[in-house]
């Protein structure tokens, strides 16, 4: 750094090291994750055992899949409040088709994927068509789906849950793909951890290496500018809403096959955890900046803390306190970055 410093503009040279650090959106969350990991490793015995690791990884995995999808959407400048309840909706569609209409589980999964994509596309289309904030549009979808979940479930089963997946056709193969477990070191690891890692890797590759990724950053950072240079803004954003819905389908499928039943009120309130994990991972609330790896690490912090508090035998209330502090810290760091990058120098 010092070697080249004298050859460039002195103003650039002075700000460079800090800029370098701040362009990595996931850096803050990585440091946070390391701190949490070290803390609970020292404080509790269980945390580092194979069983402990599998517990907090399991807790992080489904949250992480959603956090990564929500992070993509947030980089694209939108929110999806219906993401949480969507994990229940897709699970219910799969379970009702498989248990009540005796569909093969694979066909039921396919149908619920189509359902998810349609709702996602509807979200995106409404947001782009009306120009309303996605916050309010998806709040509407959220409430509508919540009502639909309860209403239809009660109508079909007479209770607030759908169960009996185990006896359906195709359960064994679908269960193997979405909900099998692997024994490592005496502990059982859920296959959802692999889905989480795979999804994060694909999302990162998409965001940083492909044209679509470039467009996602652009539509979130400055939609008008993106449109002026020929980026299909509407198509990109609708695709992002559909991706979020598809991720909710994946999580819904994992849950329904693992627990073999779905509660109609499942997933409610989770949407905020997804957003919080994405923000802790470095996503700006205003869009145009963020990282899939960061969101995955944000989810990991969630899982480690939630289970670490249990291992330590503390009251669970401390988790919310921790969450609040973590979120505020992340927002402050992100905000500092945005001011830095968007600052106008003349």
């Amino acid at each position, binding site marked *: 750094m010092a070697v080249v410093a004298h050859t460039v503009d002195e103003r650039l040279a002075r700000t460079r090291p800090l800029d370098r650090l701040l362009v990595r959106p996931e850096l803050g969350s990585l440091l946070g994750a390391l701190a949490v990991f070290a803390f609970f490793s020292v404080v509790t015995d269980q945390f580092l055992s194979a069983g402990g690791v599998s517990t907090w990884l399991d807790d992080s995995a489904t949250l992480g899949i959603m956090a990564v999808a929500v992070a993509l959407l947030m980089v694209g400048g939108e929110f999806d409040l219906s993401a949480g309840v969507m994990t229940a909706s897709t699970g219910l569609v799969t379970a009702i088709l498989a248990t009540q209409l005796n569909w093969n589980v694979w066909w039921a999964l396919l149908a619920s994927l189509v359902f998810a994509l349609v709702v996602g596309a509807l979200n995106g289309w409404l947001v782009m068509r009306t120009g309303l904030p996605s916050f309010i549009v998806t709040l509407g979808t959220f409430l509508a789906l919540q009502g639909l979940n309860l209403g239809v479930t009660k109508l079909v089963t007479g209770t607030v849950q759908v169960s009996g997946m185990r006896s359906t056709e195709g359960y064994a193969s679908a269960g193997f793909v979405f909900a099998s477990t692997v024994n490592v070191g005496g502990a059982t690891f859920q296959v959802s951890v692999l889905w989480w890692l795979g999804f994060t890797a694909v999302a990162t590759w998409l965001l940083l*290496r492909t*044209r679509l990724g470039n467009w996602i950053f652009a539509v979130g*950072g400055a939609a008008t*500018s993106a449109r*002026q*240079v020929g*980026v299909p803004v509407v198509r990109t954003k609708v695709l992002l809403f559909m991706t979020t819905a598809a991720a909710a389908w994946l999580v819904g499928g994992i849950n329904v096959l693992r627990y073999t039943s779905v509660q109609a009120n499942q997933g409610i309130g989770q949407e905020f955890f997804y957003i919080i994990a994405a923000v802790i991972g470095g996503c700006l609330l205003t869009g145009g900046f963020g990282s899939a790896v960061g969101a995955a690490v944000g989810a990991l912090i969630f899982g480690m803390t939630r289970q670490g508090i249990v291992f330590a035998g503390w009251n669970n209330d401390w988790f919310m306190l921790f969450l609040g502090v973590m979120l505020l810290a992340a927002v402050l760091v992100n905000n500092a970055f945005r001011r*830095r*990058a968007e600052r106008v120098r003349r």
Partner: protein
Amino acid sequence: MSTPLLEVREVGKRFGGVIALSDVSTTVNAGEVTCVLGDNGAGKSTLIKILAGAHPHDAGEYLVEGEPVQLSSPREALDRGIATVFQDLAVVPLMSVWRNFFLGSEPRVGWGPLSMIDRGRAREVTRKALADMGIDLRDVEQPVGTLSGGERQCVAIARAVHFGAKVLILDEPTAALGVKQAGVVLRYVAQARDRGLGVVLITHNPHHAYPVGDRFLLLKRGRSLGCHEKRDITLAELTRQMAGGAELEALEHELRQERVVPRPSSPTLETVPAAPAAPPARPGRS
């Protein structure tokens, strides 16, 4: 003389009952800068929107390389080699310089859905394109938002030049800039001109227009006050016409009077010794 790159003949545009522009004629030649000057509301924006294809004109003729056209979208203008750099520059501040440079036209390697942006090439081309314009950015990975206003303007210009523009339309590129930065941008305008592009420079500052311009189109209230070749007009005359000529003199007169009028009616000022340069009109009025 060869065919001009762009030519408008008595072009006009109405928005409902409002005549935004009428009877404006000018030409843009390769390797020359045509400046469009005018105050706010003079019709500068309407004219460039016609040239850029954002508004179709509804009177007169618009010729691109001698061929009459009726452009219906900026894309169509772009396909004919007419690139416009609007005031907001169409850059995304949080994205890196090279990502901005290629946004919407990313070079790719690989096949189908697995194709990726050719990042090495994109970075190299960006660095080279900027260097050709005389901008030496050491790091094309830095966000555009960290560049100065002038540098951002230059990135937008370099991008237009790189993507095959024959005509470059610049909307008030120096408006928000300091003196030094404005000078830097004007140098790039000259650079683009020397590379054989036809440049349309919109500005309300004759001091920016005169040094680089070859031709000056003066607009006022949607009408042309005339289109002058550089050899036919001096900076002083250009400034005078732009400011409204006779009107400015009247304004000067008015302002001088206004300074004088309150004086007799203000008791506190009576005690103050009269300024030595008091205008002669004063005694007569009080």
